[in-house]
C-alpha cells in the first residue's frame, strides 16, 4: 500500500541548477499539494492542483513550477535553485476539497533538498 511516494528523498544541488521532484499517489485522489517545511515555520503551501491538468499558486510559489499531466503525478520543479530553497519538501494528496470537507490529507515521507 504505497500511498504518496516522493522521489528523490535526498538531493544536493548547486546554486543555479535545476531539478524536479516527483510525487505519485495511488489513491485516485483529485487534489495534490506541495509543501515546504522549515524550522519554526510549520508547513507552507507552495503549489497545489485540484485535478489533472490544473495547478494553482499557494502561499510561497516563487521560484517553483509544477505540472499535473496525469492524475496520479504532481511534479515540482526548481528552475534555478537558490540556497533559500534548502528545505524539506512534502507532497500530499486528498480525495477532493482537502480538509475543508473533513477529508484527510495524506502526506509523503518528504524530500530533503540542500542547495549549496
Amino acid at each position, binding site marked *: 500500500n504505497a500511498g*504518496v511516494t516522493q522521489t528523490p528523498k535526498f538531493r544536493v544541488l548547486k546554486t543555479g541548477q535545476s531539478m524536479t521532484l516527483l510525487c505519485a499517489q495511488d489513491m485516485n485522489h483529485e*487534489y495534490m*499539494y506541495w509543501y515546504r517545511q522549515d524550522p*519554526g*515555520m*510549520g*508547513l*507552507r*503551501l507552495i503549489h*497545489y492542483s*485540484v485535478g489533472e491538468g490544473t495547478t*494553482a499558486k*499557494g502561499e510561497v510559489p516563487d521560484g517553483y513550477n509544477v505540472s499535473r499531466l496525469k492524475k496520479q503525478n504532481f511534479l515540482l520543479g526548481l528552475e534555478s535553485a537558490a540556497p533559500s530553497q534548502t528545505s524539506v519538501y*512534502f507532497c*500530499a494528496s486528498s480525495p477532493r*476539497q*482537502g*480538509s*475543508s*470537507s*473533513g477529508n*484527510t*490529507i495524506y*502526506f*509523503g*515521507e*518528504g524530500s530533503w533538498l540542500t542547495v549549496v
Partner: protein
Amino acid sequence: AQSVTQLDSHVSVSEGTPVLLRCNYSSSVPPYLFWYVQYPNQGLQLLLKYTTGATLVKGINGFEAEFKKSETSFHLTKPSAHMSDAAEYFCVVSVPYSGGGADGLTFGKGTHLIIQP
C-alpha cells in the same frame, strides 16, 4: 482568514505522565481542526480530526482532543506518555470550502514533544 497558534514550541514530560499540547485558533466561520504527528524523518500522519458533532475526539495511539468553541482551543491530550510518542505535533485549522483553492488549510508551527525516561 484563519490562524492557529501552538502555544509551546517544546514540551517535555516523563514517561507515564500526562501529555498536554496546546492549540488555539481563530476563524470567522466554524472551522475543521486536525492534529498531525510527524516522527523523525517521516511525513505527517493524521492523529485525529474534528469536523462536526461530538466535541471530544479520540484519535490513534491513545490521543484525544476537545474542541472548545468558547475558548477557541483544540488541545491535544494523552493520559500516559510513552517513549514512542516523541515526535513533532502540528495543529491544523481549515475553514469550509468557499471556492477556489486549497481550502485555507493553515498549519501551526509545531510542538516538539520530548519524553524523558
